C-alpha cells in the first residue's frame, strides 16, 4: 500500500524530529512532595530576578527567601526578631540605628558576613529601582563601626525601618557576588538553601538544596525546596491533589470546601492587605464631586462591606473603613462603625452636596482584578455614583494607576505597620498618592509621628486615622485573608500579615 507507506514515513519523520528536539532539554524528573526530603510549593507568582533591589516585598520575594538571610526576622505574630542582627538600638533622634551582627555566618561562596557586607548590600539596594527601594530611601549613610557592628544613618526617622530590614531591603548577598554583577541570575547568600541552577527549569520548577553549613539548620527540616509557578488556581490545587506539590499558596475561599473534602488542610490568616478605592482626586480635578468630603462619605455609605466579605470572600476577610492594619496601633474599633451600609443616607449626602444627578469616577480596569469591581460598580451605581472602568493592559496596570491620570483606582496594598501605609499612600510623593494631594493637617500629623517615640506614636496614628476616616480620604472595603492549602502531612504555621509565609512556617508533620 503505497499510501500507507507514505503516511508512515511522514509520521516517522515527525516523530523523529520531535524525539530529537525534545531530548535536548534539561530538567530533572518532577518528583512529588509528601516526604520530609522535599517541600514542593505550588505558587501563583513568578520571579524575574534574584537581585533583592529588583524584587518587591510582594509574593515574588518567596523565591529569594531560601537563599538570603535578612538582618532581622518577622515572626508569626508579625514581631521583629533577631536573625543576622542580634541586637539594635536607636539614638535619641531616631536617625541612627546601631546593629550588632552575628559573627559566625559565612556566605556560600566563602565570603565573611560582617559590617562591610551589610554596608555593601544596603548601598547596592539603595541604588536599585525596584518597588521596595523607596521604603528605605531615608537611609543616607551606612557606617562600619566595628567588624560586626554597623550604624545606619537616616535623613529623617523611619518608624518602619526595622520591619523593612526583615524584608527584601534586609536581604544580605555576598559582597563578591554584588561586585560580580549577576545576582539577578545567580543568587549567593548565606541562607538555609542554595539555588540549584542545574535542576532549575525557569518558569517551571525552581529547586533549592540544603546549605550544609547553615548556622540554624534545625529551623529548616527539608533537604530540598521546590517552587512551582502555576498561574491557574485550579492547576495549583490539582498539583496538590495529585501529590506533585505539598502546598498551594495564594488560593481563594472558593477552594476551601473542596480541599477539605479531599483530605487537605486549609490554613487561613490575615494577610495584612487592604482592598478598596484610593481616591486620588481629592482636589476635584478630574471628578469635581470628589473634592467634596460628603461625596466621598456617600461612597463609603453606599457599599455593604459585610455582605461583600460574606458573599464574595466567604467570610474570609475583615470589613474595614480604615486603611490601617487592625492589629496595629492606628486601628480604632469604633471607626469601623462610621459608615454602615446606608444607600439612602448616601443619596441624601449626594443631594446635599449638589450632586444629586450623579458623580462619575473613572478608574483603570484590567483583567486581573477579580470580582470586587463588579460589585462596587453595582452598589455605587445604585446611589448615583458611576464607577467607570477604562480597560488597560495588565502589565501597565500599576503604571497607569499611579500615573496621575485617573481620579481613583482599585487597590490592594500591604498595610502592616502604619508607617508603611503612610509611606505608600499619604505622603505627597507616595507612589499611591498618584495626584500628589497634600493636606496640612495630615502632613503635620505625619511629621509628628515620624519624630515621636515608640510610646507616643499610637495616639498620633489614631488621630490621623480618625481624620482620614471622617474626611473619607479613601473607600476601603476589607482586609483580605491569606488562604493556603496544604497536604495532610505538612504542618503550616500561620504567619500573620504575610501573603506568602516564609519557609520556616513549614515542617513535615511528626
Amino acid at each position, binding site marked *: *500500500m*503505497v*499510501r*500507507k507507506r*507514505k*503516511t508512515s514515513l*511522514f*509520521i516517522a*519523520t*515527525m516523530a523523529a*524530529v*520531535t*524525539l530529537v*528536539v*525534545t*531530548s*535536548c*532539554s*534539561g*530538567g*530533572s524528573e*518532577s518528583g512529588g512532595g509528601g516526604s520530609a526530603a522535599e517541600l514542593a510549593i*505550588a505558587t501563583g507568582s*513568578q520571579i*524575574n*530576578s534574584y537581585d533583592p533591589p*529588583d524584587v*518587591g516585598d510582594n509574593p515574588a520575594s518567596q523565591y529569594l527567601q531560601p537563599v538570603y538571610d535578612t538582618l532581622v526576622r518577622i515572626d508569626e505574630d508579625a514581631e521583629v526578631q533577631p536573625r543576622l542582627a542580634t541586637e539594635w538600638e536607636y539614638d535619641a533622634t531616631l536617625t541612627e540605628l546601631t546593629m550588632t551582627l552575628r559573627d559566625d555566618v559565612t556566605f556560600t561562596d566563602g565570603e565573611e558576613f560582617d559590617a562591610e557586607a551589610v554596608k555593601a548590600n544596603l548601598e547596592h539596594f539603595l541604588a*536599585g*529601582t*525596584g*518597588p521596595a*527601594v523607596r521604603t528605605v530611601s531615608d537611609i543616607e549613610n551606612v557606617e562600619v563601626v566595628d567588624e560586626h557592628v554597623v550604624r545606619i544613618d537616616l535623613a529623617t526617622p523611619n518608624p518602619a525601618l526595622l520591619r523593612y530590614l526583615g524584608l527584601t531591603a534586609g536581604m544580605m548577598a555576598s559582597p563578591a557576588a554584588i561586585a560580580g554583577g549577576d545576582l*539577578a*541570575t545567580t543568587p549567593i547568600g548565606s541562607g538555609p538553601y542554595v539555588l540549584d541552577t542545574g535542576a532549575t*527549569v*525557569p*518558569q*517551571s520548577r525552581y529547586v533549592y538544596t540544603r546549605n550544609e553549613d547553615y548556622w540554624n539548620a534545625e529551623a529548616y527540616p527539608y533537604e530540598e525546596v521546590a517552587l*512551582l*509557578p*502555576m*498561574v*491557574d488556581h*485550579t*492547576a*495549583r490545587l*490539582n*498539583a496538590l*491533589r*495529585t501529590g*506533585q506539590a505539598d502546598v498551594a499558596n495564594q488560593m481563594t475561599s472558593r477552594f476551601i470546601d473542596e480541599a477539605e473534602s479531599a483530605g487537605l488542610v486549609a490554613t487561613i490568616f490575615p494577610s495584612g492587605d487592604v482592598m478598596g478605592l484610593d481616591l486620588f482626586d481629592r482636589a476635584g480635578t478630574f471628578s469635581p464631586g470628589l473634592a467634596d468630603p460628603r461625596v466621598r462619605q456617600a461612597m463609603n455609605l453606599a457599599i455593604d462591606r459585610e455582605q461583600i466579605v460574606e458573599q464574595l470572600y466567604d467570610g474570609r476577610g475583615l470589613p474595614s473603613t480604615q486603611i490601617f492594619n487592625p492589629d496595629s496601633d492606628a486601628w480604632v474599633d469604633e471607626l469601623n462603625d462610621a459608615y454602615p451600609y446606608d444607600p439612602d443616607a448616601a443619596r441624601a449626602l449626594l443631594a446635599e452636596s449638589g450632586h444629586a444627578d450623579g458623580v462619575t469616577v473613572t478608574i483603570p480596569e484590567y483583567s486581573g482584578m477579580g470580582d470586587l469591581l463588579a460589585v462596587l460598580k453595582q452598589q455605587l451605581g445604585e446611589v448615583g455614583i458611576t464607577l467607570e472602568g477604562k480597560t488597560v*493592559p*495588565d*502589565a*501597565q496596570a*500599576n*503604571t497607569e494607576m*499611579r500615573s496621575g491620570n485617573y481620579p481613583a483606582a482599585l487597590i490592594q496594598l500591604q498595610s502592616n505597620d502604619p508607617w508603611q501605609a503612610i509611606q505608600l499612600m499619604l505622603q505627597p510623593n507616595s*507612589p499611591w498618592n498618584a495626584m500628589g494631594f497634600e493636606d496640612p493637617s495630615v502632613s503635620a500629623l505625619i511629621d509628628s509621628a515620624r519624630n515621636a517615640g515608640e510610646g507616643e506614636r499610637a495616639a498620633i496614628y489614631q488621630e490621623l486615622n480618625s481624620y482620614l476616616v471622617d474626611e473619607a480620604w479613601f473607600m476601603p472595603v476589607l482586609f483580605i485573608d491569606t488562604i493556603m492549602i496544604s497536604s495532610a502531612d505538612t504542618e503550616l504555621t500561620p504567619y500573620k500579615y504575610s501573603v506568602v509565609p516564609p519557609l520556616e512556617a513549614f515542617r513535615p508533620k511528626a
Partner: protein
Amino acid sequence: MVRFVAARLTSGIILVVVVSAISFWLIYLGSGDIARTIVGDGATDEQVVVKAQELGLDQPIAAQFLMWSSRAIIGDFGVSWFTNQGISTLITAKLPVTLSIAVGSSLVSAAVGIALGVAAALRRGWLDRALQIVAIVGFALPGFWFALVLVATLSVQAGLFPATGYVPLSASPSGWLSSLVLPVASLAIGVTAAIAQQVRSAVIDVLRQDYIRSLRSRGLSGSQIVFKHALRNASPSALTVLSLQFINLLGGAVIIERIFALPGLGQMTLDATVQGDVPVIMAIIVFTIVIVVVVNLILDVAYGWLNPKVRIA
C-alpha cells in the same frame, strides 16, 4: 521537484523577514512606556531614561529593528528585558514542550481523523451520522473544557495521569508520554473533528470520480481502491487542513499549557505579550514562523510529490 523546494524555501525566508518586521512594529506600538514598566515603580525619571538608552529604546524603530535582526540572524536573540535570562536558552528549554503537544496532537488527530473520515465516507447512513455527531461534539466544545473534564476525571479522581507538569523525554520516556496524554487529548479532540470532516468530504468527492468506477470494474478490492487510490487523491485536502490545524494547535497550546502548568512557549508568550517584553516576543514570533514554514514545507513537498503534475515539472 528541487526547484519547487528551493522556491518554497526562498519564500519562507522572505516570509520570516517580512513578518518579523511587521510584528516588531506592531509590538512596539502596543507596549506603552516600556522602559518605565521594566525599571518598575520606584524608579526616578532619570533612571527610566538611562534604562531606555541602555535598551536602545530612544532610537527610531527602523534602527532598533536593524539592531535586533543583525543579532537574530546569528542566533543571538538577546536577553529578556524583564527576567534577564538568555532568550535562546529559554526557548530551547520550552520549545520541546510546546512541540510535543502540537506535534503529538497533530499526529493523533491525523490518524484518528483520517480513519473516521474514511469510515464516514464509505458507510453513509447511520454510522456516518453517528460519527458526524461525535466528531462535531469534539469540535464544538472548547479544548479547555475538555482539559478540565479530563483532569477532573482521569487525573484527580482516577490518578491515571499527572494533573500538572512536564517530564522531559530525556528524563523518562514513560513519564514524558504520561505527562502529555491529557494535554494532547484535550487539543486533539477538536482537531480530529476538523480533519475527519474534510477527509470525509474529500473522499466522497473522489469516490464519485469516474476512475474509481473504472477501478471497481477491474476487480480490485475495496480496501485497495480506498486506501491506495482514493486516499492519495483526497490527500491534498487532508494536508491542507492538517497544516492549518497545526498552526491552530500552536495557539491552542497557550490555554492548555496554563491549565496543565506546562512550561512551554504558550505561557511564555502570554507573559511576554502582556508585559511588552519585546525581545522575547520577537524571538517567539521568529521561532513560530520558522516552525510553520518548516511544517508547511514538509506538507508542500508531500503535496507536490503526491501530485504528479508538480513532481515532474
